[in-house]
């Protein structure tokens, strides 16, 4: 048994109160750092996911919808709503120079009433032309969606095979989509024809107002990509100039507000993590300086027994490293236990897209948090370690006699 090699471990285990205080500081620092890393990643992934889900250069909606910020309501806030325009607008948009592939979507909001299973956003897409929803749906359901078949977002409480009722019309859930961390998780997707049937059912109940438009020939929005080489802003401007009653919104600008808020939140999270990391390092440095001072005689005793300065420094640093590693891992694990189950609540509270990374990535962030904890604490303690290893042995023995 090599007592000297085990000394750092014994110092930690046999002085639980002393080590506990140091561990607690490391746990707090690692918890904050890990949570910040995970939040940053989740928000970043949520934003990317939202951009992918929008998946088009330009979104053309009724001008009225844009004024009422109904688009943002669906895309960003998750409030079920609807707006309509005549499907003839598709032809007009297609005629605009620079417009490439186009597809239409039809929206319907269900109700929190006896006629509907739940209040959700229903999104109808055209399977023949869709390039936004279909690839995503295909990853969960390989076949074409049949009549009255729907695919539920990950946030909808329904499984494949379940029936959902909208305006007293039953629909079969054929698949559930993977989580996106966006409000699309609380939507139900169906072919345009299915949504049109549901729309007729809603009209039958005197719901969903169409005013002057023919419910059989309405669409909610046109999603389009511009032709290669075409300028997205210029194409959007041309649509706004040449097609009456519509608003062409660049999807990036639709997300710009969210992106700005996201940057602000990320900045705050990162700043808080840096503050905790720096404070933690300072507290650990002070705590270790005090502890090293208190144990000066013990270190001097080791020196008279033949321990070199280098060995002494290595031993103390090993002790600090063990505390940072154990405390760091515990803090990060605690962060994982808190952050992952409450991510939904956090998403709701922040009102931002948020997609938690997979477990492998979570463990990578855990390793990162532990490393940052080590990297913050070790250099902060180096001065005290260097000082005690350089101290005159005879002085240390005399001082504490």
């Amino acid at each position, binding site marked *: *048994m*090599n*007592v*000297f*090699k085990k*000394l750092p471990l*014994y*110092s930690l285990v*046999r*002085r639980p109160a002393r080590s506990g205080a140091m561990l607690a500081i490391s746990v707090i620092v690692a918890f904050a750092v890990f949570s910040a890393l995970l939040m940053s990643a989740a928000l970043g992934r949520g934003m990317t996911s939202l951009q992918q889900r929008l998946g088009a250069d330009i979104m053309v909606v009724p001008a009225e919808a844009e004024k009422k910020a109904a688009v943002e309501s669906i895309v960003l806030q998750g409030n079920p709503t609807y707006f309509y325009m005549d499907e003839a607008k598709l032809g007009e948009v297609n005629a605009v120079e620079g417009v490439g592939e186009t597809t239409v979507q039809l929206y319907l909001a269900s109700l929190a009433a006896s006629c509907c299973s739940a209040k959700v956003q229903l999104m109808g897409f055209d399977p023949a032309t869709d390039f936004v929803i279909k690839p995503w749906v295909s990853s969960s359901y390989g076949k074409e969606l049949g009549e009255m078949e729907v695919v539920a977002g990950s946030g909808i409480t329904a499984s494949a095979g379940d029936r959902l009722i909208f305006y007293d019309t039953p629909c079969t859930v054929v698949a559930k989509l993977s989580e996106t961390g966006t409000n699309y998780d609380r939507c139900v997707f169906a072919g345009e024809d299915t949504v049109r049937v549901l729309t007729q059912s809603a009209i039958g109940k005197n719901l969903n107002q169409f005013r002057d438009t023919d419910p059989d020939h309405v669409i909610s929005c046109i999603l389009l990509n511009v032709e290669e080489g075409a300028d997205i802003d210029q194409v959007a401007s041309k649509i706004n100039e040449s097609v009456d009653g519509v608003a062409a919104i660049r999807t990036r600008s639709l997300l710009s507000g969210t992106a700005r808020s996201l940057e602000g939140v990320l900045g705050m999270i990162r700043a808080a993590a840096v503050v905790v990391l720096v404070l933690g390092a300072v507290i650990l440095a002070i705590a270790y300086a005090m502890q090293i001072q208190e144990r000066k*005689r*013990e270190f*001097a*005793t*080791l*020196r*008279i*027994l*033949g*321990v*070199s*300065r*280098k*060995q002494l420094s290595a031993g103390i640093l090993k002790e600090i490293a063990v505390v940072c590693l154990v405390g760091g891992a515990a803090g990060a694990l605690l962060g994982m236990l808190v952050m992952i189950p409450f991510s939904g609540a956090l998403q709701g509270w922040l009102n931002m897209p948020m997609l938690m990374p997979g477990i492998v990535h979570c463990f990578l962030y855990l390793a990162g948090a532990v490393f940052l904890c080590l990297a913050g604490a070790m250099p902060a303690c180096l001065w005290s370690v260097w000082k005690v290893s350089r101290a*005159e*042995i*005879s002085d240390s*023995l*005399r001082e*504490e*006699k």
Partner: protein
Amino acid sequence: MELRAEHICHTFLQGGQRLEVLKEVNLTIQGGYLYALQGRSGSGKTTLMSILCGILAPSGGTVSMGDTVLYSMKDSALSRFRGAHFGIIPQGQSAVSTLTVLENVMLPASISGSCGGAAQRARELLDRMQISDLADVMPGELSGGEQRRMAVARALMRDPDIIFADEPTSDLDAGNTEAVLQILKEEAKSGKAVFVVSHEDRISEYADVKYDIKEGRLLQ
């Protein structure tokens, strides 16, 4: 093997003034003798012992053992040399508080990396010090006398050439004083050099060579 200290001088800075505590001290320590160094408080006894045992570089002069000049070595080499050749009993409590008595005694062997049979030897030494029943006790639970005996056992662990003891009997009752001095005397008789710094008058009864320090000079 003998330890030679030649022209040792040492000065301290105290209140901004240089204080010369040792002046041209020359000394040879040989195996088989118990050396006693006495003097009033602050006379430089502990300073001289620290210089001799390789833990305080003198302001002037050399300390050598055979062909080895102590303070010309790098710290790692000097530390190894100190651990291999010297058994040091510092003044007061010197146990590592997070190790048991047995582990404290084994520590010098562990530091040198020669752990084989260390536990057995440590138990024998504790038995010799009559504290074998305290092997698994933490040092904080020991009395002053028991702590001192533990420190003696630890100093003997690597069978050193020279034992340095700084006030090994301070704060001890008559029985413990007698026991500690007797052990040190036995070590000297067995061929080791034993260098004891002490206020204790009784040390004179055990010492083969007695020194006194007055005004920085060593007197025999």
